[in-house]
């Protein structure tokens, strides 16, 4: 995003709206730090500017900067997945897709969340660790899959490494016996990261919203703990196509 200095009246109302903290005063007008801006579009969508000085310039959609837009603006549709947002549909439609079937587990690493954002070099640290551990199986529909240059090393395409995004999600799905190895790999990469990530584990439920005990035991034994809130698919969907 940019601010037209000729139009800006310097009221500063837009500045607190930026999740990246990228809007600042320059010569008594608001300006946007292009390096810090994730192109999430919050400043524009909020319609907070009284004179319409905030605009989205065409270069936002040029590769590789376009990645900022696709991974940071939830109203944009990712060019690869065709899905709005930064991941796939994960557990939300598992009752009809069975993407995470009985006996398997899904893991999502939500990079940059909450709030901080993350450079793609940090994402590469995670994809490399997963590749080196032999646990690299990022879902083909996951947007990060298209950013990988070499699946064997986990290296991302070099032209992307200087980009920043508000968040991106690495999603994997595998047999539940491999959950300890994945969690160990994730644990090892944590100290190398500048930013943050949130970690999700997806599993089908037993009768009466009972979480399979073997999954909970692995989570605990690998030094993690689940939080009291979760996303729960109620199982009301049906396949009709």
């Amino acid at each position, binding site marked *: 995003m940019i601010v037209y200095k000729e139009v800006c009246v310097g009221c500063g109302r837009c*500045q*607190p*709206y930026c*999740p990246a*903290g990228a809007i600042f005063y320059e010569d008594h007008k608001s300006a946007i730090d292009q390096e810090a801006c994730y192109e999430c579009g*919050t400043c524009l*969508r*909020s319609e907070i500017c009284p004179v319409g000085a905030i605009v989205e310039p065409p270069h936002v959609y040029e590769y590789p900067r376009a990645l900022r837009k696709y991974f940071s603006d*939830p*109203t944009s549709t990712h060019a690869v997945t065709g899905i709005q*947002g930064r*991941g796939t*549909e*994960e*557990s*939300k*439609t*598992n*009752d009809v*897709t069975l993407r995470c079937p009985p006996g398997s587990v899904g893991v*999502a690493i*939500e990079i940059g*969340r*909450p*709030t901080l954002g993350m450079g793609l070099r940090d994402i590469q640290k995670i994809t490399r660790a997963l590749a080196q551990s032999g646990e690299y199986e990022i879902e083909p529909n996951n947007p990060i899959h298209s950013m990988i240059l070499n699946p064997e090393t986990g290296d991302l395409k070099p032209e992307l490494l200087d980009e920043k995004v508000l*968040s991106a999600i690495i999603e994997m799905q595998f047999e539940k016996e491999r959950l300890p190895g994945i969690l160990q790999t994730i644990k090892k990469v944590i100290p190398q*990261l500048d*930013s*943050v*990530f*949130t*970690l*999700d*584990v*997806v*599993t*089908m*439920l037993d009768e*009466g*919203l009972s*979480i399979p005990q073997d999954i909970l035991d692995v*989570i605990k034994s690998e030094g*993690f*703990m*689940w*939080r*009291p*809130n*979760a*996303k*729960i*698919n*109620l*199982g*009301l*969907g*049906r*396949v*009709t*196509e």
Partner: protein
Amino acid sequence: MTHSLHREGKIESLEKDYAVFIYPARGYNYKGSAPKVRRLVEIVYQVGPANMIATTLRKNLYSGVEPEAVLDSIKEGCRVFTVFNSRDKIRDLLKNLKEADQGISIVVSGLIDRVRDIAAEVGINPHTINLSLGIHGGTEKLPPADIRQFTTMCGHAMISPKLVQDVIRRVKTGKVDSWKGSMILANPCACGIYNPHRSQEMLEDLSPLYTVSRW
């Protein structure tokens, strides 16, 4: 994907916060989904949501969109995200959604124990769970937890920590009341699950504790 499973705050506050997602799946029940989703949204309205968005509009109820506009916008594949601020409402909603039996995936995000009780009460046997294993990495760089309980209510992190601080300052100094402040915070949320009722209570809790340097 929304980040609702990582919402932060006190348990007694999270007990008044249930995000709901209505989600047709491409290739499975996408075709012909529009009238079914519209019926489900009518049920949502009858129960009384705290906030809502349709992916066809991407504006929530506090960013200038009327309920009729949401219904009118629903077309093939439209997903709807909404949030409720009481246990009674979410129970009524799930009961009515089950009876409507539209065959579209529905997800509830909230405290596991409460959702378990409510599902049992209305005769629903949930299928899949997405557990949160928390935040990891450079957590020392995060805004403080009392600010994160606001920012994590937008699933896509569109609520800036600076905006939360600004609104606390405005409530503290009497420039806006807690409800108006809450609506200011709800405005940037592009996923429609920012709960302004919960946010209002949190503003009232927090503003007396804050000192401000700029009036």
